[in-house]
């Protein structure tokens, strides 16, 4: 094939070189703008992660402070007052002042001291459920349900299928989550008549469900949405620690159902 005349070929060749330069320039422009966009996205992601970590840290500290305040209040209001009363009774017995019936006072002092012992046990149990290590998660949940039945007017149901126990640290986290969810239900689920706690292991999946038939809430106005749920945030921290997933379902008048799902060792 004959070569095209120079007057045709020269602009073609030089134009192609120009086009190559444009392609090169376009490629560099694309890389620069795309890299900047990705970098900005990464920075935004890091900022979100940092804010999330900060929120978690705040929740942990707030939960600790709240727990200390509660323990302090319980010690002051219950245990300290019981012991003070017992001391008064013992002082009166020891004062030498004639008393009509010292045996009654003595029994009263014993009763008050017995109450103080129970109160100390309750505080101690809330600090660390020794029962959990001794009898396991299912029995501890049973105990929690029993305490609920005694202290509230709700009908508390517990269903469990938990053949393959988790390591103690994970069991403790799950127990704490359950404790917090039950506490939330007792506190916020107005009009609730039933509280259901379920712990089910299906294959490699372990699910803890706490559901009530109380007033419920609109998700957009719930504690998680308004950011006011310190308890929910402390649950969030534990859920994250367990590498679990948290699902909440609620609607006004429809009750609330919270489910925690995590990968667990399969039943043998």
């Amino acid at each position, binding site marked *: 094939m004959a*070569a095209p005349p*120079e007057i045709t*070929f*020269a602009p073609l*060749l*030089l134009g*192609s*070189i120009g086009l*190559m*330069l444009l*392609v*090169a*320039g376009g*490629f*560099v422009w694309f*890389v*620069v703008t*795309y*890299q*900047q966009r*990705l*970098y900005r996205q*990464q920075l935004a992601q890091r900022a979100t992660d940092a804010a999330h970590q900060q929120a978690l840290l705040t929740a942990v500290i707030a939960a600790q402070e709240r727990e200390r305040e509660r323990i302090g209040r319980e010690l002051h209001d219950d245990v300290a007052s019981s012991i003070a009363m017992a001391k008064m009774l013992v002082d009166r017995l020891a004062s030498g002042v004639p008393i009509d019936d010292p045996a009654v006072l003595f029994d009263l002092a014993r009763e008050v001291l017995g109450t103080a012992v129970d109160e100390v046990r309750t505080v101690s149990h809330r600090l660390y459920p020794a029962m959990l290590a001794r009898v396991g998660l299912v029995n501890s949940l049973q105990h929690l349900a029993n305490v609920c039945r005694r202290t509230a007017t709700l009908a508390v149901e517990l269903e469990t299928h938990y053949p393959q126990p988790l390591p103690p640290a994970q069991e403790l986290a799950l127990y704490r989550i359950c404790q917090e969810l039950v506490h939330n239900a007792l506190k916020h689920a107005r009009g609730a008549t039933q509280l259901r706690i379920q712990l089910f292991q299906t294959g490699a999946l372990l699910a803890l469900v706490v559901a009530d038939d109380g007033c419920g809430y609109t998700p957009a106005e719930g504690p998680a949405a308004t950011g006011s749920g310190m308890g929910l945030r402390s649950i969030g921290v534990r859920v994250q620690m367990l590498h679990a997933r948290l699902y909440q379902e609620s609607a006004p008048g429809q009750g609330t159902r919270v489910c925690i799902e995590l990968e667990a060792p399969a039943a043998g």
Partner: protein
Amino acid sequence: MRALLLLVGLLGLFRYRTLPPELRRLVGLIWFGLVLELASHVLASLYHSNLWLIPIDAAGELWLLSMVFAWALHSPVFTRVKPWLVAAFVLYAGLSSGLTFELSREAARFKPAVQGIESLLVLGMAGLYFRKVLNELQVVSLARDPMFWVSVGLVIYSLSKLLIALFSNYVLEHYSRQLSLTVWTVNGLLTIVLYLCYCRALWLRPQK
């Protein structure tokens, strides 16, 4: 152009001690280019063909650039593949050069295949750098990264040189000396752009 090459080479020497390893290799590449430019000038002034320097230039350039990118990429795969790739190219360029000497009639011809393959390989290495930049997102500002300027210069230069190299013999055989000179002047301008990019890279203080 030679003055610019010398200036960039001197800048490289001046800043050599403060440069990271990849840019030290780049200084080596610039001085290699300077030596070949000088040899080419001497041969041309003695009315000898200097086209046989093309495979040497291509092989040396690729070898030194592969060292530059090996330091910049920190990629174990690239480090493993690099010696084989460069050795194969040097062998190919050497064979191409040897064949040219045997066929003395062919001595006054360009080596489009050697230059084309070199351009493609250089584009590949620059592409790997851009891929790393986009994947790792460790560079805050690309304009402050010396390797970005090296890669930009190489992309602009190699893309255009690929076309020039492919048509070099065709232009030489079928068209006027004037067109050939115009095309190689464009190549010279692109070389100036490349060396300005090298200059920018050597001038920048690498980001910590």
